[in-house]
């Protein structure tokens, strides 16, 4: 309860400040290519090496999307948001590497594929978030 009270006080303090600069939000962009829900990295076939290479190529595409979306987001950000976005993106890179390394350290050769899939999914999901094609409203 104590926290709720604190929250309420913070809200009360913040409302007048934010109301002044309140404006209509841009409507979220619809998904340009209402993507098929199935996971394309599951279509990669062959030996471990081929699968790893195949997923790696898919990740490259997503990485390009991500870079573009990140640059756009930086352009659209308010001045006070810019450094926060840069910091968040730096931390995202570190987190992605650490998280996929965790999968890589798993048992068996499947762990190499899991690490590759980790990279693909994370990159796609971050690109979706930054270009607004994820389902923000749930």
């Amino acid at each position, binding site marked *: 309860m104590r*926290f*709720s009270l*604190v*929250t*309420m006080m*913070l*809200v009360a*303090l*913040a*409302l007048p*400040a*934010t*109301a002044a*600069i*309140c*404006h209509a*939000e841009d409507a979220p962009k619809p998904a340009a290519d209402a993507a098929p829900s199935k996971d394309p990295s599951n279509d990669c076939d062959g030996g471990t090496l081929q699968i790893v290479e195949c997923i790696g190529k898919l990740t490259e595409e997503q990485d390009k999307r991500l870079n573009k979306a990140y640059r756009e987001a930086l352009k659209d*950000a*308010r001045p*006070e*948001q810019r450094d*926060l*976005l840069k*910091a*968040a993106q730096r*931390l*995202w890179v*570190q*987190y992605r590497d*650490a*998280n996929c*390394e*965790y999968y*890589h*350290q*798993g*048992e068996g050769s499947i762990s190499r594929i899991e690490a590759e899939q980790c990279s693909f999914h994370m990159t796609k*999901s971050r690109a979706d978030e930054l270009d607004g094609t994820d389902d*923000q409203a*749930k």
Partner: protein
Amino acid sequence: MSRILYVVAALIVITATTGSALAGDPGDPDATCDGSTYEMVECIAAKTAMWDKRMTIAYQRLLKAGGTKQREPLRVAQRLWIQYRDANCLYYGMGEGTIARIEAGECMRKMTEQRAAELEGKEDRN
């Protein structure tokens, strides 16, 4: 500057509420968070609290169940996840208008839910 401080404070409150999970409100995952800004923020925080509990349980289980080689990478990843979550949601919190406060809360809810699902899924595979 004061706005940054405010958003930081608000995020800390969200995180703190998350830890002390409101007993009366299980944070029904299917409930839609409608109402005033305050009600929405509280409702989203309750959901976040529920996902945070699930995430913590899955993380602790994985630490115990995982091979020794994976233990340290998992700790490192989870530490970085927390830093990334805080930085990312602060970015949303500094957006324009009161909607930014809701977006920051939604960011916390969504990220925690996704991380919980990831850790729980990994658990199943072991």
